[in-house]
């Protein structure tokens, strides 16, 4: 997993409806729409509002947000989510 820091494009268009926790997000750069979980949106929002946040701090913030211990299952799920968001252009390593 990339250790960070991460950065988030600010031109994404996020949509959430009251009937579920999921978010749809439009990436104007790729022209694609993606369906993501509330946790993925939290990760993006945290990256977008933090300066040069590392992956470790990001995972700690997520564990605190979902009120779960920062254990293997959560780390694996968060890692897969970050990889997906990276591939989709929703976040990018700030190298």
């Amino acid at each position, binding site marked *: 997993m990339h250790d960070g820091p991460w950065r988030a494009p600010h031109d994404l*268009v996020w*949509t959430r409806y009251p009937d*579920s926790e999921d978010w749809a997000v439009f990436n104007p750069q790729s*022209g694609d729409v993606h369906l993501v979980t509330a946790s993925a949106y939290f990760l993006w929002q945290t990256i977008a509002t933090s300066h040069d946040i590392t992956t470790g701090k990001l995972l700690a913030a997520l564990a605190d947000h979902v009120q779960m211990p920062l254990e293997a299952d959560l780390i694996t799920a968060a890692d897969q989510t970050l990889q997906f968001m990276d591939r989709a252009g929703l976040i990018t390593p700030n190298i």
Partner: protein
Amino acid sequence: MRSLEPLSQLDTAGVQVSIGPFSVRLRSDIVGVRTYLETVYTDFPITSETAAHFDIAIVSTAGWRQWMRPQANLVVNGVRPFLPLPEDLSGALFEWSLNWCVGDHAHRWVAIHAAVVERDGQAVVLSGVSGAGKSTLCAALVVAGWRLLSDEFALVDPQSGLLSPLPRPVSLKNQSISILKQRNPSGVFTPERIDIEGATFVHMKPPLASVRQAGEPARPGMIVFPRWTRDAATRLEPIPKAHALMRLAHQSFNYNYLGVRGYEAIAGMVGRTDCYTLEYSDLDDVIGRLASARTR
């Protein structure tokens, strides 16, 4: 019935056919095209005017091909987008060329692959991949008295959020043909043909009332993702709107071309409507269910 006298110019200067928001200039030297128009386009405004959004020519191949396995060639705005097809598909080729024109060029709207019908001011968008049963359901709803907006495109106006009608002949394939002929014994259908994928198809003439209301946009009320399943009991179940938005975006021809404006048009429509998945096999049952769900 209106006069089809302008069709006498079909093989020379061509004719202008008004189809929903589009004016189409059509020229053809193939008798099958004229017969097709005389069968399913008799209620459409056909004039000898020359201005048009799309200039379509369906012309026969010259030389020996006129006599042996004759072909129909499509020319749209001076470009040949497809290879020639057998001449007995020339009428259907007009519909396929219109699909190509709208899907590739009509970027004033967000174009979604969907059938749209309307009753009492609320439109139902039926979206799904080919073979899901949306055209069959659309045709059955139209025969049951719903207004046809389109069996191929939901045209969403990004400014108003309304759906622009594009009523045209309804395409039916394989088993759907006999089902709809039974339900609509006085309906007008083109002769059966075999398409390039081997499916038997016809086109059903759209109702006069739908053609006359082609200038009246409709407000979306429901979005339904139908799937025909043999012997299935009707199941109309809500789907999370974010999931509906994803599915509609994937069925859109041009939302990404329109960028944020296209995305927001679809997202806005989803936000203002009820969204369902539908599994069905019994058309009468599903027509009743859609009518009652719509008025809830």
